[in-house]
């Protein structure tokens, strides 16, 4: 969860605190954001009774003693004494589900993760969504004024790996349509940095909600001079649905589903690299770069990292933790703050990279060194496929880490 959403969650909690205190608290949807919320509540002395989740694979597990249970369990508590807190983009669908099963208590959205959805047909809703659409059209017009008829590529979600896949196949897609000039629109500086690795000259960074409105305008106008490059966002894109009956690695979804390219299309590789400014501080071939943080993947148990640090300390390696923003280095390691464009030089110099499977692993795919990707044992979205089925990397050692969800 990025700091913008975290701050929104904290502020929203404070606004609703009267409705939450002294109630039995349930969370809905076991995902990384819900884990962050659970930690936040535990710090406040509030222990959620359960995490509701429709996925049978997740039910029966627990997080810090909070069980993951089917949504019907919420009915065991009288409605007036219970509250359900949500921090997922599926708020509208979950709220509807709770209503349908007869839950009478309060349902509170602490983060507006999905500005596209509002499951209502009231005149007020339609009018304010229309105003949002007009705002998006205005943003689109402004973009057109700046870039003329350049083709617009929208990356709707703040995930480095998604933008990496997009850029891997975008070139071939544009080539087939004889498009020479384009602008990539992304929701974060990190995503912009990934696009630039592939040589994108024009990259625009928007606040998530502004980008959502802009994309909505592109959908509404059916603008053929732009493309939304994602597998399941926004709601009009349904490419992920095939995963209910078939396993398709994410890279193949990008190549074939999103861009409509032949399955044997060769992905482009990033080419705009820089050398890390403090490269000589890294012992050549005798250092390990650890990457324990990921935005949309549940964290690995701390003891996994402690074990890795112990092994590499005994081997006499220099140990770095790749950190960004407020992230802390793992105990016994040196913080490393390198730009994405510098990461290839960093891991090649160090000789070894070990990281949770995140977008950073994609960024260093082509680096020439020992690379190990660690996969928490979880299912991809609400499918029966494991993360490793969806994301496994060539030229990496791909390892599933068992252990309690944390």
């Amino acid at each position, binding site marked *: 969860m990025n700091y913008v959403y975290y701050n929104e969650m904290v502020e929203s909690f404070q606004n609703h605190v009267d409705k939450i205190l002294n109630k039995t608290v349930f969370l809905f949807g076991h995902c990384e954001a819900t884990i962050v919320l659970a930690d936040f509540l535990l710090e406040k002395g509030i222990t959620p009774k359960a995490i509701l989740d429709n996925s049978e694979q997740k039910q029966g597990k627990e997080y810090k003693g909070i069980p993951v249970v089917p949504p019907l369990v919420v009915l065991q508590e009288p409605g007036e004494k219970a509250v359900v807190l949500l921090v997922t983009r*599926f708020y509208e669908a979950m709220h*509807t589900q709770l209503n349908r099963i007869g839950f009478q208590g309060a349902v509170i959205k602490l983060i507006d993760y999905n500005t596209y959805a509002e499951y209502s047909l009231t005149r007020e809703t339609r009018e304010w969504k229309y105003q949002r659409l007009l705002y998006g059209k205005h943003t689109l017009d402004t973009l057109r004024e700046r870039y003329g008829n350049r083709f617009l590529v929208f990356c709707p979600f703040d995930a480095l790996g998604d933008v990496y896949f997009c850029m891997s196949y975008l070139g071939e897609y544009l080539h087939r349509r004889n498009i020479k000039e384009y602008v990539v629109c992304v929701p974060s500086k990190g995503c912009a940095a990934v696009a630039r690795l592939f040589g994108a000259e024009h990259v625009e960074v928007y606040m998530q909600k502004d980008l959502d409105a802009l994309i*909505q305008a592109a959908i509404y106008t*059916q603008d053929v001079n732009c*493309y939304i490059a994602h*597998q399941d966002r926004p709601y009009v*894109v349904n490419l992920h649905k095939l995963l209910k*009956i078939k396993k398709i690695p994410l890279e193949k979804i990008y190549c074939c589903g999103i861009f409509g390219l032949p399955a044997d299309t060769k992905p482009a590789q990033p080419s705009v690299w820089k050398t890390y400014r403090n490269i000589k501080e890294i012992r050549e071939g005798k250092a390990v770069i650890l990457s324990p943080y990921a935005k949309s993947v549940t964290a690995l148990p701390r003891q996994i990292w402690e074990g890795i640090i112990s092994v590499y300390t005994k081997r006499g390696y220099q140990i770095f933790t790749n950190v960004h923003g407020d992230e802390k280095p793992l105990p016994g390691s040196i913080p490393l703050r390198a730009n994405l464009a510098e990461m290839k030089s960093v891991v090649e110099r160090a000789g070894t990279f070990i990281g949770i499977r995140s977008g950073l692993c994609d960024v260093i795919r082509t680096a020439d060194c020992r690379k190990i990707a660690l996969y928490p044992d979880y299912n991809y979205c609400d499918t029966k496929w494991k993360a490793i089925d969806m994301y496994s990397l060539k030229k990496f050692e791909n390892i599933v880490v068992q252990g309690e969800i944390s």
Partner: protein
Amino acid sequence: MGNNDQEIGMLAVLEQDLEQRDFVILIDKKYSEYLTELLCTSTALKKTKKQLSILSTTEFPGQMGKHLYRKISEEEMDLLLQLYRTYEVSDRILLFSVDPNYGSMWNYVKSGIASQEEILQAMLL
């Protein structure tokens, strides 16, 4: 969107179908004949446990079994498509179309990753 009688009527239809059916399927008028035929004669439609409301601008004379089939006018379909493209009204509205500016399940068929029947089956789960 305005608030004329036609629009109010279509909103009422949509609200009722969302209340009573598992999915509401809009078939884009641009490909109406082809997509209506494809969906309505599919094994996926016969086998699905979901109850559907299918809205199309094309007549379909065949049997629909437990599903509801509504032929609506092009203007009415335009209203529904405008609404669909303005915001996500429900995750139980499915558009059968080939919009030009985002990836489509039909691309899987083109790439040989899935058959048309598999696509329809996945959409109706």
